[in-house]
């Protein structure tokens, strides 16, 4: 008999979700950004990569909703396509972090108190002490600048985070009755980890994943801003800000839209994460 996951979405879950304000707001914003990114594959007002100096620095108009940049590219179209970059990079980075970090954390919890446990958690501490930006800069020397570089650098930063969350979530579970029962039934530690521990920390991982997605969006923007992210002609919010910086005196509006796009997206993901945390753990939300 396998244990029911602590936070299985039940009938009440949806009802509570629809009443939870920050969850609703966060989910709506996130969905909006994802839809905008998806739409940009089939339609943007203009081609975001076409350079046409003749129409440079146009103010916002019916034709160019947010105006054009010094190269004549349509700002609104670039924002739309830039969402793809942000989402893709941070999503893959979360995949790398969770894909490596969660098994490490589970393994450490499974061998709790042992050398392996100590080794894994000290390694996590160590990676955490390493400035993520330095990892990105060094990776550029290996892979060259680009999306892959950004994904791996942010992914490495995510590994210790997920390892700690998985470890912290799994450790107390090993003392629970249903794990004892599984042991008595003759299941080995590895099987217990996969069948009983992992399903029970799923909600923790999802919540942390949402938070790391938002941090990934910020990190991607920062890397693109200093030239370590995706390369032209692919639009990216961070690089749009970098290009806007030299134009601050002339066309400050160029710095507004990409910045707002980042803030709104990150805000949406954070609200979604907070909402999910409350919904998965109703006890917590009532106490606060």
């Amino acid at each position: 008999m396998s244990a029911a996951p602590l936070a299985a979405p039940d009938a009440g879950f949806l009802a509570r979700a629809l009443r939870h304000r920050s969850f609703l707001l966060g989910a709506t914003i996130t969905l909006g950004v994802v839809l905008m990114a998806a739409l940009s594959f089939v339609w943007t007002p203009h081609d975001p990569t076409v350079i046409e100096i003749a129409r440079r620095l146009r103010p916002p108009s019916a034709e160019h909703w947010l105006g054009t940049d010094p190269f004549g590219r349509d700002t609104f179209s670039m924002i739309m396509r830039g969402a793809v970059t942000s989402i893709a990079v941070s999503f893959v980075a979360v995949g790398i972090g969770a894909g490596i970090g969660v098994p490490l954390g589970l393994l450490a919890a499974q061998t709790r108190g042992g050398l392996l446990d100590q080794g894994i958690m000290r390694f996590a501490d160590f990676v955490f002490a390493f400035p993520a930006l330095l990892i990105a800069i060094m990776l550029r020397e290996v892979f060259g600048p680009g999306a892959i570089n950004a994904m791996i650098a942010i992914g490495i930063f995510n590994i210790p985070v997920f390892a700690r969350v998985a470890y912290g979530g799994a450790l107390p579970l090993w003392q629970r009755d249903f794990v004892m029962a599984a042991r008595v039934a003759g299941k080995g530690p590895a099987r217990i980890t996969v069948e009983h521990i992992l399903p029970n920390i799923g909600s923790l991982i999802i919540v942390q994943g949402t938070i790391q997605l938002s941090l990934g969006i910020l990190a991607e923007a920062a890397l693109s801003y200093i030239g370590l992210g995706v390369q032209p002609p692919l639009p990216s919010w961070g690089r749009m800000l970098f290009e806007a910086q030299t134009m601050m005196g002339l066309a400050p509006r160029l710095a507004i839209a990409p910045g707002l796009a980042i803030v709104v997206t990150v805000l949406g993901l954070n609200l979604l994460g907070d909402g999910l945390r409350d919904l998965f753990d109703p006890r917590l939300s009532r106490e606060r």
Partner: protein
Amino acid sequence: MLAFALRRFAALLATLMVASAVVFTAMEVLPGDPAQVMLGTQARPDTLAALRLQLGLDRPAPERYLEWVAGILRGDLGKSYTYSTPVAELVRERVQVSLPLALLALGLTAIIAIPLGAVAAARRNTATDVSIMGATQIGIAVPNFWFAMLLVLLFAITLRWLPAGGFPGWNAGAWPGLRALILPAVALALPQASILARVMRSSLLETLSDDYVRTARAKGLSQGQALRRHALRNALIPVLTIMGLQFSFLLAGTIIIENVFYLPGLGRLVFQAINQRDLVVVKSVVMLLVTSVIIVNFLVDIAYAIVDPRLRRGR
């Protein structure tokens, strides 16, 4: 307490050893030959070989690693290829920008965050609390380099109160130097203060429900008195931990803000050194930054154990 401190110190030394090995190895596997970079692509093979010999690049890696570590322990960080000056001297110059910037940013963070968090906790679930928490949500979502650009737009370009970038050096006087650091410090402090205010709020809420606060209330103190006399001090413990983490982040993580404001700090030094393949500088400065992060974490752990004796037994 002494046993705990010694145990933590042993762990600190072990971590530093691993860190130095990782940093050294990372520099070894990075593509690019420093001699080639110094002489350019047109260099003759025999000149290149001579320079490699002079730089000691022909010797085995373990030997160079030990020499590097021994050098650091003596305070000798090596000599920069591109600047032809000792790295220690470069670091000394740059720290004069990075350290005051980090301290200024951390000070601002604390001044903003602690009162805000305390007020939010004391007026929990009121409009004040909701607006403070809403503001911190936005503060966390704002990229600091974008905030920096907006600050430049307002205070440097439009109002012309503060410089948009650059650093005059401390020789020009304390005020011009400080003026150049104000906007960068504010830009760094906003997201940090937002995080810290939230930590302060939840930490204070937790202590307010503790038994000793209830006892204090029972003996006749008002909620405000109990908060000020008992809860506040205990609530500051997690806040100090986060501030320790934030300080090391500020010291090492200012590369981007230093780039926005053209500040000659440690972050910019590393950034430029990597671009110029000045691996001696990269290796030593990265090691220095990682060391400072590890040492700050160690000090936070010790401070924690002094404040809360229960923690000494664990781990």
